[in-house]
């Protein structure tokens, strides 16, 4: 009897779920918005847009993995199978060309594009397009800053009110027996670092990206890959290298920076916001937060202005979603100035909307807003190719661990590896 009841319950549940699916179509369409995990700000933004739509749609946030590669893997897997349950996806800009080339993204028509790019930073707009069309909407823009402990910089006599270069920073840390923390695990962080160093000399990791697999790897050009290797090797072998340099991700570098050995750190803009929260939670001493200083990303060489990394999120509308028109309106809603400012204050993440940085509320919450805007305007984007993942993984393989990078061989070997990998001649 009991067993039969159990069976009935299961059957009822199945029927209910089927009815539930069918019933969904009578209410407003539910847009599935895939986004990285955050502090809940996405959901608030989604709710605001759902309300603003006046019942035209309801946005539901689904959470993606934490790291960019994991996010890409999940989305690629689903979209390659034409999964219709994705309507809007938060994409790391480096994957926009790949998704566009694969036909996963619904391109925006010129009218939509004009509205979606209005008032957005040019670096964010550039990284949202592919083959002269806007295929994703600029949303979040992020950059790395040089974070320093004011006390350490003062003790080392390093003046950070003027541009500094990597060698100066490492020397200052060595002098004061402190560390320079950089996210340098063998993951995307390595590519961000190499790209920052290479573009800082005026070079690029690859050129001619529109040629697909026949693009041209250019780390050997002008010695840019060599200079990058020299700096990474120097830090890797210096007393200023944190013990876990070669395995650290962003949060590990923050731990190092906030510890007794902390001196300098290269990290994304979220670092100070996270420290403020940690102080509020009683996990971090107030003095450490007060000691936080920030400056522009270090120069590779004294002669060239630095090209800070560009990161962030672009919003793509899936070609396979059932409600693309509603998805486009949701994306437009998310990109409005007021929503961007509110979202920025709630999420502590920085926006692609240029005007938001001049808003007094943002200026108050983000004392370094001006520096972030300047960094984003002069950022050095990572290679824009549909094969970004292969290019990046090649760089990660040859430029890791930092202490083991050989400036004489790494640039040539990386160039050869990229060419071989793209033509299915070498494993990666």
């Amino acid at each position: 009897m009991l067993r039969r009841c159990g069976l009935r319950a299961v059957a009822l549940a199945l029927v209910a779920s089927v009815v539930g699916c069918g019933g969904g179509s009578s209410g407003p369409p539910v847009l599935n918005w895939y986004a990285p995990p955050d502090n809940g700000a996405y959901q608030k933004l989604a709710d605001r847009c759902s309300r603003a739509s006046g019942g035209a749609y309801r946005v539901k946030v689904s959470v993606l993995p934490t790291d960019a590669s994991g996010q890409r893997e999940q989305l690629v897997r689903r979209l390659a199978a034409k999964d219709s349950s994705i309507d809007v996806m938060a994409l790391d800009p480096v994957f926009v060309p790949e998704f566009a080339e694969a036909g996963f993204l619904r391109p925006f028509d010129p009218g939509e594009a004009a509205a979606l790019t209005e008032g957005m930073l040019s670096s964010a707009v550039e990284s949202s397009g592919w083959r002269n069309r806007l295929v994703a909407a600029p949303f979040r823009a992020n950059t790395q800053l040089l974070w320093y402990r004011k006390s350490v910089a003062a003790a080392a006599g390093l003046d950070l009110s003027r541009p500094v270069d990597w060698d100066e920073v490492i020397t200052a840390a060595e002098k004061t027996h402190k560390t320079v923390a950089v996210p340098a695990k063998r993951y995307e962080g390595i590519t961000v670092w190499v790209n920052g160093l290479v573009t800082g000399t005026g070079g690029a990791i690859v050129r001619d990206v529109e040629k697909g697999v026949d693009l041209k790897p250019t780390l050997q050009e002008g010695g840019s890959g060599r200079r990058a290797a020299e700096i990474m090797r120097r830090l890797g072998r210096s007393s200023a290298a944190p013990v876990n340099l070669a395995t650290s991700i962003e949060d590990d570098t923050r731990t190092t920076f906030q510890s007794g050995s902390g001196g300098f750190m290269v990290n994304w803009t979220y670092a100070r916001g996270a420290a403020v929260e940690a102080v509020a939670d009683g996990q971090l001493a107030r003095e450490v937060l007060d000691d936080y200083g920030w400056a522009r990303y270090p120069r590779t060489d004294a002669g060239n202005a630095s090209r800070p990394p560009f990161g962030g999120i672009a919003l793509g509308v899936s070609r396979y979603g059932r409600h693309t028109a509603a998805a486009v309106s949701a994306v437009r809603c998310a990109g409005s100035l007021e929503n961007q400012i509110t979202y920025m204050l709630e999420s502590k993440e920085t926006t692609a909307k240029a005007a938001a940085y001049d808003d007094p509320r943002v200026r108050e919450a983000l004392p370094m807003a001006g520096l972030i805007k300047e960094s984003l305007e002069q950022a050095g984007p990572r290679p824009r190719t549909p094969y970004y993942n292969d290019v990046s993984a090649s760089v990660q393989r040859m430029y890791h661990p930092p202490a083991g990078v050989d400036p004489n061989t790494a640039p040539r070997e990386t160039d050869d590896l990229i060419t071989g990998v793209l033509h299915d001649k070498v494993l990666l």
Partner: protein
Amino acid sequence: MSTVSTAEAAPRHKKPRGQLDHAQRMRRTGWMLSAPAVAIMILVAIAPLVDAVWLSLFHKRLTTPDANSFAGLSNYWVVLKDPLWWTDVWTTLALTVATVSVEFVIGFGLAHLMQRALHLRRSLRTIVLIPYGIVTVVSAYAWRYAFDPSTGFVNDWFGIDIAWFDHRWSALFVIAVSEIWKTTPFMSLLLLGGLIQVSPDVQEAARVDGAGPWQRLTRVTLPIMKQAVLVALLFRTMDAFRIFDAVFVMTGGANDTETVSFLAYRQLVSRTALGLGSAISVLLFACVLLIAFLFIKLFRTDVSKLGSPT
């Protein structure tokens, strides 16, 4: 033994016709009953395997659907001549040999302990099994955090300052330790099953005949539980050769700690290079088949010799 079976088989031929038909009918019913299961097996096991072999003959990318071309066996050639494949094969072999041999020794000890324990036998077995009940990813994280130089306690305990995951062999050491900790219970449980088959009388007889503990172990206990040892080692070796989770969590394959499964995963899932990735998967499958083949061969000859009186 063989005479008995022929004696039994002989009269079967003389059975009346109706009974033979009955046997045939039974067999047919048997096939019909198992047909759904066989069909499902073909669907979930054989079909993907055939698909993987087929895919491995193409240059194919998931994200550039228009740029596919027939590659013949060139994907296999690319894999087999690439030093990365061989590095990964050696890493995997090293991990397999290290973990399975240590697990065997410890597992055997634990099995003995579980068999011999007079008190709390049930609690002991439960306690021994706990690590095996923990999800591999969770245990891998636990070990990773324990050995992490900034947040872990291992360096603190031993007063050392080692970046465990920055070097190949220290990282492989931690991976091996976590694997051993996690799967020794499985090994010991399988071995316990074999150990129970060894009757105390046989042990007693050997003792009376003047066999020392070592002789009793190698000449009596191990030969009798040969099947259990084979199953335990075979299962664990095939399992260990496909190691993925611990490497994924602890090093992400950095510093030459990548294993063959991880390589296949990266080509297939991260790079979406379906051709190359399938070639690696097929080669991995071949390796596992080879391991099974070698084990069965090896045990038939060597261990049976061990058991036979000389």
